[in-house]
């Protein structure tokens, strides 16, 4: 296990969440759960982040923002969709303004279910994401490198 998975810095983005999941994400930072035990830090900056944590589904307002944030993160990076809305659109799926889950826009690596997702499961999801991060790192090291996403 390299240092990569010992220091996952997350970027938390509230797409169109009802704030339920966001409170749970922030609860992870509190003394009770203390995710810094795993080296997890909530950076507010895609350029420093390894894990993109998104709550809520995609709508027309945040579509470009999500793409933008994703592209500004350096490889290797993983995306964790927290809560049912981020995973599939949830109860808002049929709304006129909702496009769907995050995976209709960018590739999602881990889905954390729940409404709202519990802090334990969020931490579990991020820790799961770490092994995917390691895998991606190994893929990056391969000689043939796939161009990562389209430039704007």
């Amino acid at each position, binding site marked *: 296990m390299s240092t990569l998975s010992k220091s996952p810095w997350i970027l938390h983005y509230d797409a169109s969440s009802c704030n339920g999941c966001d409170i749970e994400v922030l609860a992870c930072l509190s003394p009770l759960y203390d995710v810094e035990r795993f080296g997890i830090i909530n950076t507010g*900056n895609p350029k420093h982040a390894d894990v993109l944590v998104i709550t809520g589904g995609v709508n027309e307002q945040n579509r470009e*923002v999500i793409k*933008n944030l994703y592209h500004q993160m350096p490889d290797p990076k993983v995306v964790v969709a927290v809560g049912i809305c981020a995973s599939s659109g949830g109860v808002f799926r049929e709304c006129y303004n909702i496009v769907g889950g995050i995976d209709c826009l960018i590739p999602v690596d881990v889905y954390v279910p729940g409404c709202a997702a519990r802090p334990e499961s969020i931490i579990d999801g991020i820790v799961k994401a770490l092994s995917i991060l390691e895998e991606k790192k190994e893929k990056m090291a391969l000689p043939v490198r796939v161009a990562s996403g389209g430039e704007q």
Partner: protein
Amino acid sequence: MITLPFLILFPAAVAALLLLVASDSWRRLIVKAGALIIGIASLYLLFITPEAGPEFFPVAFEPLTGLMFLAEMVIAAFLIYLGIKYKKYLAIFLVLAQAALLVYFETTAAAGVHTVPNLFIDQFSLIMALIIGIIGSLICVYALGYMSTYQEHHPDVRDRRRTFFFLMFFFLSAMFGVVFSNYLPWVFFFWELTTLCSFLLIGYSGTGEAVNNAFLALNMNLLGGLAFAGALLYLAFVSPGGQLLEISTLIQSGHVVALVPAVLIAFAGITKAALMPFSAWLVGAMVAPTPVSALLHSSTMVKAGVYIIVRFAPVLTGTMEGLIIGLVGGFTFLLASAIAISQSNAKKVLAYSTIANLGLIVACAGVGTYKLVWAAILLIIFHAIAKSLLFLCVGTVEHRIGSKDIEDMTGLIVRMPKVAVMMFIGIAGMFLAPFGMLISKWAAIEAFIEAQFGLIFVAILAFGGSITVLFWSKWMGKIISVCPVATKVENGIPREKWIALSFLTAMTVFICLAFPVISSHLIEPFVLSVYGQTARLSQDNITIMAMMLFLLMIMPFSMLWYRKSTKVVPPYMAGRPTTPDMHFLGSMGVQRQVNLGNYYFEEVFGEKRLFMAGTALCFGLILLMGTLTAGVAL
């Protein structure tokens, strides 16, 4: 020994020729050839300057002094004419007062004088001559390119380029006269010539603002000239034979005799060097074409002011008056640096930084221990080079982008890469570690600690020095920020400008490498001959700084290493989709553009507030000094 009179007369001859020649191509030729010859002649001085002590060259030509008196009267008449024309009565009054003093001096005191006036050269004169001869003539060459563009950009300004170049070269002549004359009435004559030249050059454009500022400069410098003339009269009465009218004997004659004239002349120096409360004229002089500013700030005019004060440092040292002059310099340094923070006009920032650095030089000279004089001369050299480079860069940029506001220089590194790099080096030369100005400030801190009341100055340097860091680095940051969409506008800069800019950039770097040699061959012998002991930096420190400079020079090559390997993404805009030219949709769907502006802290470092404080403080100090000196004199 012909070089000294040659250097005084030759630029005047070139000037006269330029006044006659109307054709632009001839003018180009004459200016370039003249500049080249002046440069070579001043370099030649390097070989003929004696190692120990000054060398004197008597000029046994009796009518010369009379001619100078006549010229002074003609100038006075001319100034009175202009004063009447523009209704500037204060100037007329000052000219009349000064003329009266001179007439009195000539008719009563000068009769008994029977010394043969002489020219002299020592290492300090040599340094000044090199600055005037090389930097001054480079600025004249630059002015060729600048003035033709200037006239195109300002069709309303009458094309008086003949007069302009006449004045530029005549200015050099006068400056050579100031630094080579040993006979004080001659120094005074050349001193007044520099006042006249600067007055006419500042008023070149003839607009109301230019005329007002020109008269402001004239008034303040005439006030200084009045003090200078007073010093001459005093000396003529103290020594009817006129021996004390020579700088060399005056300086050696000790505190008792020399203090009063030294203080009077130092006051003249303070007005010329534009220290507070007289700083307004130098800031006002910004209305002149940029080469004039460059000339005034780096190699002529203000440098004459500090030159004369450094000359008299041995007399001032250890006296209350010297300390007060030092304090005027110190406070000027602190407050002018602070004011520079609040300015966004590049030329004004440069002006305040000049005032600040002159203040520092005067602080060193006023306290006047041998270590401080060493530091002061270093400051004069480094400041002249870096400041002229910066002025010329600003002038070049101004003509290409049509603004001299620092806020408009965003991304200059993309738009005018070469000029931006030169400007960068110039700014670095003004405040960063292995470069000249910082070495001098450092030397000054070390020297002040040991001086009397030095702690005040150390504190001023500690605070003032860090303030300097702020306004230079934010300017630096402006020019190196890489804005994504920008067109390159560097083409079409005349060759004369490039010549001057490249030379000065090379000199800024070279002088840092060569400074141990300059110190050991020029500054140390001078300080040694005046004080009997000298200062120097330790060998270790020089080696370390050379290493730092070397590192700085190789660091840019690291860019080659990283050239292609990295992915470029736009700056973080909180996730908002942003176009390459930094437009984005703000709230309510309004299209907005990113505009990054520097902090200017107007409410803290505002010009008005600090200028008032500085004027009050320094005016009070000068009054105190005047009272003390009057006490000594009576």
